[in-house]
């Protein structure tokens, strides 16, 4: 069984693309071979900055002979039809087989397709792989038209079996295959021949190339941590950076360097970001102080001076970089300690969105909302408002201009330096959260108020200008903002009725956009923000001032946008809860209830319902409820009346009927107070307890009795049951 070795040798492949590219090479080539009938035992792919390598073991020497059976015309078909079939199959008449079928005697051809040697298939598949390789970005070079990530120089393609190694002949736009490769660009540049994968990997290592990226990363990590440990320090873990560094070198040599004393007082995040982004250095920390004190750089070669020149150069470059960072930090601190007003003023020149205004206006809206939300989340309104006002100040700082990824964090440092409270400082960093599904949500009250204000402003603002996410398009990350709102509310158990607020905010933002749009400077931002749009008259008064249209209708349209936003939040909530194992119909049953705009409450109800439906009693009660509801609605449809009149126990005829009356009284006595105190679990379990009496009732009693009074009383009884149940959740929406 032959083994296959492929190496595509090129100029330096971007580090971030290497892993994916080696996997794609493996997928392309192995899929292509298997499609052509060439199966194999195992395959592995590797990459270095200059090569993609694939090794495939236990390949078939040739694809197996395939037999294709083709159905032809009937045996008595015209001569022409049969001739055509023979031509297509490449056979003669006597090679055909006649078979009796329900349609009469039909001709069949058995066509033998001989297997093809592995080398032929590989050459074909590899050429296709090279020509159609899915690079994220590819290029042409010289006068040719072949595309690769950077110029492709050589193809090594070798089949090895007991008899020896054989080059698979291949020519892609003048690049011909061989059994040769080259070593390290500087340390072992000569080309050499190989005979198998093992020979290749061993010779590469002698030629200063470590083929396996994982081995390079492990070596770097091992050497780096050892070096740090020997100095009583530790390396700050950064898997992404480590993988990137491993993609920049073929022969990793780890060096540890010093950071100038002048820079040690910079915040550790600044040091780390500057070193990572600009120099691809790993940070080395003093575990006692938490300070970053050294760095690790990884060279791509050994030198006679053991890296002294390389390290000195790197230290020099870093000093220049950090001198910039320190310059920014010192300047920023001076502003933070004197007056951050300059930064806030500068936000007036930064556009947030061309319709929704500048960052400064955004901050004003956020501050007003944060103040409003503060008491509902246990925050001090003054503190929340100030925190919101300062939350974006750092966007004007020099440090954040240089390192945008430090936004929020720098705000926290600078606000603290200005002498404000830790809560206000923390909000600058935490109000952006959560950014991803696994990101922590803020819990400190002031941060929660500002985080909610930022997201609600964003959602209501974009809703007001009809920039909603559609399909896969969500350029303003509104789904993420909605999920953020949901997670903050649920994880903080924050009970707020959102509907009026959303309506008010959307109306307010629509007015702001309108005022900003042309010359409608009749209202100031603060006037609009201080109006209470949750009151209908207020809304209409403003809308009347600003539009010539029917104010009631215009106001109604704006209000409808708020309602639409609430259903968007409900939709996102469904997605979020589905991932937590709560079915969409269970949530629908709860969304159908009054008070559905309090998302925390809604979810409590949904969880309680989901739990109770998982119990035996709950599941059976649901069936009994559906039966009761069906009988009732059919009867109501047939009789043209609604059976909502209270049933009377005195018309009850059987023990089961009387028992159900008792059970209902007992359940009601529990459910009503439980619902008042929003104790859904108690209400649901009281409801589930009806299951026994209800089942017994249906077993023993015919609802549609002949006696009209008895029948009416029983239907009214069913109505009382369904009403009681649907006061807990709309069970008619539950499937199954």
């Amino acid at each position, binding site marked *: 069984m032959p083994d296959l070795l492929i190496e595509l040798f090129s*100029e*330096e492949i*971007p*580090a*971030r693309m290497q892993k994916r590219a080696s996997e794609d090479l493996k997928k392309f080539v192995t899929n292509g071979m298997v499609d052509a009938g060439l199966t194999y035992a195992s395959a592995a792919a590797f990459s270095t*900055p200059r090569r993609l390598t694939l090794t495939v073991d236990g390949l078939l020497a040739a694809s197996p002979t395939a037999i294709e059976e083709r159905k032809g015309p009937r045996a008595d078909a015209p001569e022409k039809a049969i001739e055509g079939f023979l031509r297509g199959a490449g056979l003669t008449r006597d090679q055909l087989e006649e078979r009796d079928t329900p349609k009469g005697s039909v001709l069949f051809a058995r066509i033998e397709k001989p297997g093809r040697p592995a080398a032929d298939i590989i050459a074909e598949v590899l050429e296709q792989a090279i020509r159609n390789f899915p690079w994220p*970005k590819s*290029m*042409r*070079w*010289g*006068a*040719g038209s072949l595309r690769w*990530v*950077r*110029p492709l*120089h050589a193809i090594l393609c070798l089949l090895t079996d007991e008899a020896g190694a054989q080059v698979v002949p291949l020519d892609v736009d003048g690049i011909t295959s061989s059994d040769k490769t080259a070593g390290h660009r*500087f340390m072992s540049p000569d080309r050499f021949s190989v005979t198998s994968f093992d020979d290749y990997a061993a010779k590469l290592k002698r030629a200063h190339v470590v083929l396996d990226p994982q081995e390079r990363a492990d070596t770097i990590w091992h050497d780096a941590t050892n070096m740090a440990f020997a100095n009583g320090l530790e390396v700050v873990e950064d898997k992404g950076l480590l993988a990137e560094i491993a993609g*920049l*070198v073929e022969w990793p040599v780890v060096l540890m360097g010093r950071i100038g004393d002048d820079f040690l007082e910079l915040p550790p995040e600044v040091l780390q970001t500057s070193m990572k982004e600009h*120099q*691809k250095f790993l940070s080395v920390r003093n575990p006692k102080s938490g300070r970053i004190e050294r760095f690790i*750089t990884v*060279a*791509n*070669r050994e*030198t*006679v*001076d053991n890296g002294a*020149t*390389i390290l*000195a*150069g*790197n230290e*020099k*470059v*870093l000093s*220049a970089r950090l001198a910039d960072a320190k310059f920014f930090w010192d300047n920023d601190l001076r502003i933070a300690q004197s007056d951050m007003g300059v930064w806030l003023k500068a936000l007036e*020149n*930064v*556009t947030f969105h*061309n319709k929704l205004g500048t960052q400064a206006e955004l901050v004003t809206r956020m501050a007003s909302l944060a103040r409003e939300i503060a008491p509902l989340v246990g925050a001090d309104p003054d503190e929340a408002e100030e925190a919101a006002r300062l939350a974006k100040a750092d966007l004007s700082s020099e440090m954040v201009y240089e390192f945008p990824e430090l936004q929020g964090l720098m705000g926290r440092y600078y606000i603290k330096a200005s002498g404000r409270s830790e809560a206000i400082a923390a909000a600058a960093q935490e109000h952006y959260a959560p950014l991803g599904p696994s990101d922590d949500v803020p819990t400190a009250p002031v941060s929660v108020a500002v985080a909610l204000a930022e997201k609600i402003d964003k959602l209501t603002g974009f809703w007001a200008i009809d920039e909603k996410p559609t399909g896969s398009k969500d350029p303003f990350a509104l789904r993420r903002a909605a999920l953020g709102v949901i997670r903050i509310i649920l994880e903080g158990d924050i009970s707020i009725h959102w509907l009026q607020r959303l309506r008010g905010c959307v109306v307010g933002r629509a007015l702001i956009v309108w005022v900003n749009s042309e010359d409608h400077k009749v209202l100031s931002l603060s006037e609009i923000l201080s109006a209470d749009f949750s009151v209908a008259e207020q809304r209409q008064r403003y809308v009347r001032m600003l539009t010539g249209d029917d104010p009631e209708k215009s106001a109604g349209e704006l209000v409808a946008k708020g309602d639409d936003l609430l259903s968007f939040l409900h939709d996102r909530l469904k997605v979020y809860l589905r991932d937590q194992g709560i079915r969409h119909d269970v949530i629908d049953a709860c969304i159908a209830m009054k008070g559905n705009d309090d998302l925390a409450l809604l979810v409590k109800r949904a969880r309680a319902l989901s739990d109770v439906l998982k119990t035996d009693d709950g599941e059976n009660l649901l069936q009994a409820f559906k039966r009761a509801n069906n009988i009732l609605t059919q009867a109501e449809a047939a009789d043209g009346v609604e059976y909502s009149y209270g049933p009377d126990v005195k018309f009850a005829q059987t023990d089961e009927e009387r028992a159900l009356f008792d059970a209902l009284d007992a359940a009601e006595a529990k459910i009503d107070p439980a619902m008042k105190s929003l104790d859904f679990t108690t209400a649901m379990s009281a409801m589930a307890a009806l299951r026994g009496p209800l089942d017994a009732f249906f077993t023993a009693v015919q609802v549609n009795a002949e006696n009209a009074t008895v029948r009416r009383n029983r239907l009214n009884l069913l109505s009382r049951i369904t009403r009681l149940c649907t006061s807990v959740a709309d069970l008619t929406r539950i499937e199954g």
Partner: protein
Amino acid sequence: MSDTIQAPKSFQEIILRLQNYWAGKGCAILQPYDMEVGAGTFHPATTLRSLGTQPWAAAYVQPSRRPTDGRYGENPNRLQHYYQYQVLIKPSPPDLQELYLGSLAAIGVDMALHDIRFVEDDWESPTLGAWGLGWEVWCDGMEVSQFTYFQQVGGHDCHPVSGELTYGLERLAMYILGVDHVMDMPFNDPQTPIALSYGDIFKQTEEEYARWNFDTADTAVLLRHFEEAEAHCREILGAVHDDPKTGKRIIMAHPAYDQCIKASHIFNLLDARGVISVTERQAYIGRVRALAKACADAFVQTRAGGWQPESAA
């Protein structure tokens, strides 16, 4: 290791060695373009000559101006006027990386002691409507050159592809000469009777231009010049192809491109004066790009741009 190359003594020696090296590799050694440009790429020897099918190999020093980078000569690394060394070869030769590394060795970088790396950097010039793939070249963690395979220039696909090398001369020379502040760098041989440092030559101008760029340049005049350059560029390109005097086909791609360069530099000055808002910025860049594209369209209609009489319909 191999034959050791003597360390250069001055900034100008590094430039001279690069000139000699690339001359030896067959490049035409051109002189700087006689207009203010933001980078060596703007020289028509790169922008226009990377278009069309004609082979090309040129190298030159190009003084470059970045008004916003002015620091009154006080910052050790930042200048509003600096030098780039530019090499453009079309089609890009297969051994361009080796040729480049040879040039580093020629100016005194000992390959056995330093760590040279090719780190991904995709180049894009929104004002030229151009992009390419390549690397920034690192020497011991410091970016010393930009290495690009042009894919598109002025909106035209490059066929064949040019290989472009850009050396930031001051930074590279400071590293080789072991100087920490650019103004301290020896410009000519420090042993000569009249030894001049970079600062002797440029400290004065850096101060003057920084003040002018940031505070004094007349923005009303500049805004008008921008409009005029843009209009004139269009006018030149709109002229009939056949010269009415001689009947000879002369498309004035280069004079038009001069106006495009002018507009681009004026935009940079206006930017340094802080009179261009964030939203306007994109619009200005778009206007310069439109000119660059129009000039590229014109150039490929010229003989130098690969046009041939029989190919005209």
